[in-house]
């Protein structure tokens, strides 16, 4: 990817976010150009998904780890933020308990479980949104990469990981709201979550964080570390005979990617207003993989484009032809893997290099 293209990407992501947020705040609701709060939150949601896609691409595109459980890290980050937002409700819940969230009162909790402490502080919650996914990824990755589990085996056990978490979070006595998850949020950092200003702020923040993560990912893949990582992806055994330890390279990028996904989840939850165990469903993780495949695996910008396009499609289909969305998504999986192995960006690139070659051949 050229640096010019990256700059265009930064400008577009932040530009669109600022434009939508600015128009929403500046124009009256009667104006034809006024983007609704719904559109604003939807854009923020897409950009959060783009963060997830970016993190999936970092491990799949550059380290060859096809994670079928990345949505788990996204959801863990989301739960950390959700816990903070629950604590922010304070005494305004249905039961009016200043400390315990409604579902705990309902389930006869006498006091706050230990792991809920500290989540009344936003900074702590954000830290946890990064550290918890990172820690789980560290444990999982340390065990897995060390014993050289790779390829489809790895994919299947990442799926088992998210499936286990799905089952766990469905349980009421886990203390995360069980089936219903966490919702009915009111405030964020002391500001009304439903207000347009906060929504606009969240959208712009998501855009900026996405760009920062893109920059970080680019730094990583362009470094010597990234070059080793690509070498590991293609010829793992060769790197071993050169004296590299592929397992530690994979572990570093795996944990980094999980943390990035966690941040995405933390940005996602306040904008959609709910987090529940459904986010751990294996299908979600695989959907994130198809965003990457559509945009172009191993390109960093591709996954962002893929996440936005596929989710636009999903929004459109579920509004107009809800029956057919799964057909469309299923067909997308099949068609992209067979006809578009390098995604949209790969197609563009091939066409451009084709043109360049043609120009070179022409007298």
């Amino acid at each position, binding site marked *: 990817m050229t640096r010019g293209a990256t700059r265009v990407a930064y400008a577009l992501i932040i530009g669109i976010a600022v434009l939508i947020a600015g128009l929403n705040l500046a124009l009256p609701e009667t104006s034809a150009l006024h983007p609704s709060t719904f559109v604003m939150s939807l854009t923020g949601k897409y950009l959060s998904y783009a963060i997830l896609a970016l993190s999936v691409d970092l491990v799949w595109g550059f380290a060859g780890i096809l994670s079928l459980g990345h949505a788990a890290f996204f959801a863990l980050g989301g739960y950390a933020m959700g816990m903070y937002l629950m604590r922010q409700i304070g005494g305004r819940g249905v039961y009016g308990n200043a400390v315990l969230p409604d579902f705990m009162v309902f389930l006869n909790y006498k006091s706050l479980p230990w792991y809920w402490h500290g989540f009344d502080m936003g900074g702590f919650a954000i830290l946890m949104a990064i550290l918890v996914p990172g820690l789980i990824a560290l444990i999982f990755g340390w*065990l897995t990469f060390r014993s050289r589990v790779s390829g489809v085996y790895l994919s299947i056990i990442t799926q088992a990981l998210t499936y*286990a978490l799905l089952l766990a979070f469905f349980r009421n006595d886990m203390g995360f709201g069980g089936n219903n998850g966490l919702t009915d949020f009111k405030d964020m950092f002391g500001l009304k979550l439903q207000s347009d200003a906060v929504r606009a702020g969240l959208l712009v923040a998501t855009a900026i964080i996405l760009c920062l993560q893109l920059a970080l990912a680019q730094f990583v893949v362009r470094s010597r570390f990234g070059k080793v990582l690509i070498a590991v992806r293609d010829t793992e055994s060769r790197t071993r005979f050169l004296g590299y330890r592929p397992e530690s390279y994979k572990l570093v990028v795996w944990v980094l990617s999980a943390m990035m996904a966690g941040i995405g989840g933390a940005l996602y939850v306040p904008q959609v207003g709910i987090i529940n165990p459904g986010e751990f469903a294996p299908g979600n993780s695989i959907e994130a993989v198809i965003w990457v495949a559509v945009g172009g695996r191993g390109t960093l910008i591709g996954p962002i484009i893929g996440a936005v396009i596929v989710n636009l499609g999903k929004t459109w289909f579920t509004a107009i032809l809800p029956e057919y969305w799964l057909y469309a998504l299923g067909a997308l999986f*099949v068609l992209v893997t067979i006809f578009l192995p390098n995604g949209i960006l790969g197609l563009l690139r091939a066409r451009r290099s084709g043109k360049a070659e043609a120009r070179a051949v022409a007298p």
Partner: protein
Amino acid sequence: MLRAALLLLLVLFGPLAARAEDAPANPGWSLLSGSYDDLRHGVEELATSGAPNVATALDALMAGQLVVDGDSHLFIQADDGSLVDAITGAPVGGDAVDADTLRPIRVNNAVRRAIEAALGNLRLFSTDPAIRRAAADAVFKARDAAALPALDRAIAQEKDSSIRTALQQARAAAILAGNAPEADRLAAVATIAARGDIDARSVLASLGDQPATVATAAATALTSLDRIAQLWGVLQSVYYGVSLGSVLLLAAAGLAITFGVMGVINMAHGEMVMLGAYTTYVVQQFFRDHAPALFGLSLPIAVPLAFIVAGAVGIAIERGLIRFLYGRPLETLLATWGLSLILQQFVRTIFGPSNREVGTPDWMSGAFQLGGLTITWNRLIIILFAIVVLAALMAVLRFTALGLQMRAVTQNRRMAASMGIRTPWIDALTFGLGSGVAGIAGVALSQIDNVSPNLGQGYIIDSFMVVVFGGVGNLWGTVLGALTLGVVNKFLEPIAGAVLGKIAVLVLLILFIQRRPRGMFPLRGRAVES
């Protein structure tokens, strides 16, 4: 509402009315007295009266079917409302009785116990051995010292030794309920301990207020009974585990072919299972509509059809999709996942999103006792079915030309091709075989799980775990993997609960794969590396 009010009236004033007229019409049948206490004595008297039809009438009383009219005549009212004279046993026309005055005779628990004991005593002398045996058990449970004389008489004239044993156990229970000397009681405890079932256990557990020696003996007997019960409990868990294992095995057997032998990751495997279950549904619908009498045959017919349907879809998938993706396992995984979404939605479009009713034929319903084990027929048949399917699969792989060519192709594709084996054709057939077996699994799963478009989703992760755990490319490994997972799951369940147990199994599996990345029975050698 009206009925409830009437009943209330009857309850309030009925006994008074009955007492006023007493029972000249029903000599000896003093079942109309006012209090439950009197009613109980009435039952006891009646039982020893030797009058005919007493047993039937007491049965009816127990079931709340004994009714009395305004003239204090007793009738037995069947479920359809028809009446029978309780004393003579003669049918009574609807016109002969004023239906509005009929009221049931109500009983409480004390009366119920008295009826049980009375019925027990009556039946101890029945000519039918089965009834005598049941009566002995009823008396045993009743623990009534008053039954002793009847028991002694019954024991004296009983010819059947097993019934005599039952009678003696009943007698022991009766002795413990009365005020027999200590030695007799100790002997009784031993007799009851020898019986050893759950009823014996509850008798023994109630002996805390007996003299110290008896109580100690009972406690000792109880401990040893508990130990035996525990053993049966473990066996029961093993059985449940084997049962779950057989389900997992069925679901995973097809995958052991497509993933284990061919190395194709088919995420739509669960949907092949689902198609098999829906085939069963369609077959059953056909039988319901056209030949309800032959409903029992629906499953045997569904098995080959499910194999054909799922197998054909499998071959279509291999020819239309997977063959373009050989050597790209991760892409295969994604494409087949997409396919699974399409198949699910397709079934949802045709059959609707809700669960479909798949019936269990009579020959698969019910349960029986085997020692301390409760074994349900459907589970047992599924276990046997899994064994048959597995044996058939192994036979196909080992003894048929197709199996030989399959093994040749998986071991050395180029060599097989150069020897004239049409490898693409073999690929398609192998994949079809694996899918067909999944379809067969669907027939079995339709008996124990909800038949919905999501049916397959619930099994895909488990199936992969079984195959990976057992070791890829080894059917015996799959068997052992399925059984191990099933049994471990069922043993964890009582300790950790169903959900946590499942999570624990997943975590254990993840840990296991770290230690043995190639499963329990890995293939070794250089061929594996490439």
